[in-house]
């Protein structure tokens, strides 16, 4: 397994970026698990097994959602785009294009490398400086 979630040498990455990468990896794993359960449930005929796996996939939905929320809280521009796409009625692609265009408008969105502190990018890409919780950091 090793440390595949890192695309760059981990020792060169700030701690916040390593945390961000871990959560991205976790998000990917949860999405994979959801896809696998979907396939298993599609072919399973034993109702008891279906019940067990239906319960299990619910856990994966929860984990995926928590991972996503964590990442969005630390990535203002991603959060801004997601707010324009998620839980909206209508054309998904259209909402996506509109949300991206809106996020790119204004000084924050135009800033090259804009992202969050967690992503190791510039400080601001939306409403705040993206500082949030610093729990556990100290001497």
């Amino acid at each position, binding site marked *: 397994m090793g440390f595949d979630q890192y695309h760059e040498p981990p020792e060169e990455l700030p701690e916040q970026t390593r945390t961000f990468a871990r959560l991205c990896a976790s998000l990917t794993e949860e999405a994979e698990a959801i896809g696998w359960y979907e396939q298993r449930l599609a072919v399973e005929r034993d109702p008891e097994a279906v019940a067990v796996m239906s319960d299990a996939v619910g856990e994966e939905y929860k984990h995926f959602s928590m991972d996503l929320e964590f990442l969005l*809280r630390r990535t203002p521009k991603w959060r801004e785009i997601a707010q324009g796409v998620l839980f909206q009625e209508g054309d998904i692609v259209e909402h996506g294009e509109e949300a991206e265009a809106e996020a790119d408008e*204004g*000084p*924050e969105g*135009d*800033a*090259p*490398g*804009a992202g969050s*502190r967690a992503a190791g990018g*510039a*400080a*601001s890409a939306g*409403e*705040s*400086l*993206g*500082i*949030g*919780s*610093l*729990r*556990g*950091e*100290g*001497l």
Partner: protein
Amino acid sequence: MSHLLREHAPITAEGWKRIDEEAQARLLPGLAARRLIDFSGPHGWERSATNLGRVEDADVSELKGVEANRRVVLPLLELRSRFQISRAELRAGDRGAEDVDFADLDVAAQRIVEAENEAVFHSWQKAGVAGIASSSPHPPIVRKKSFEDYSGCVARAVELLLRSGIAGPYGVALGGEDYTSVVETAEHGGYPLLEHLRQIVKGPLVWAPGVKGAIVLSMRGGDFAFESGQDLSVGYEAHDAETVSLYIEESYSFRVLTPEAAVAIVAPKGR
């Protein structure tokens, strides 16, 4: 457009990037509360109050046979620290200057850091914020003037927490004088005080400008709640031909859920 009105400022995208980076760099080292207590949010500028799940005792109904009780909520506090930047300095930055003068921003950042720490760790009575030290039922532990036996003070604080059934790990918010002494002091035999404290508390030791003395607190979670509305942000206020007026802003509420989960260490009187 957000209430920060950044789009109205005569500042280029690169200029905003430099301002945000400078603000973040100046804010991060001193934000002690966020390193030690539960942080929720940011929930957005629209968040006005924290739900406490309680109602006032008084029945305020004006109709016989109907009870009416007002909900009790904890309003969020808005902190704003203003600063100015010279437009000539902003233009210099756009031309590639690497020594843009952000002195006023730096002062504003330090002010809001100290305000956040002071309200959370001590209290801001007028703002309705009851802080950690002022809520603690434990008598403060008085250290020696020379910081001799400081590790003993921290150990006594941890023992007091354990005796109250408050589990660790524990963290320590160190005010300026305490921080300097902890970092530079070696105990008998040359063992660094900092290392000794780490072994006692098992959690972070944090520089906390605005804190008087030090506060030892449990980091098991669920004892102290910081709820962020708008997290620290830079907004635009006004400009003229010479300067741009900006501000650092945040909104939050803070509440102590377990008052006995912290012990203060204070300096001896008559110093």
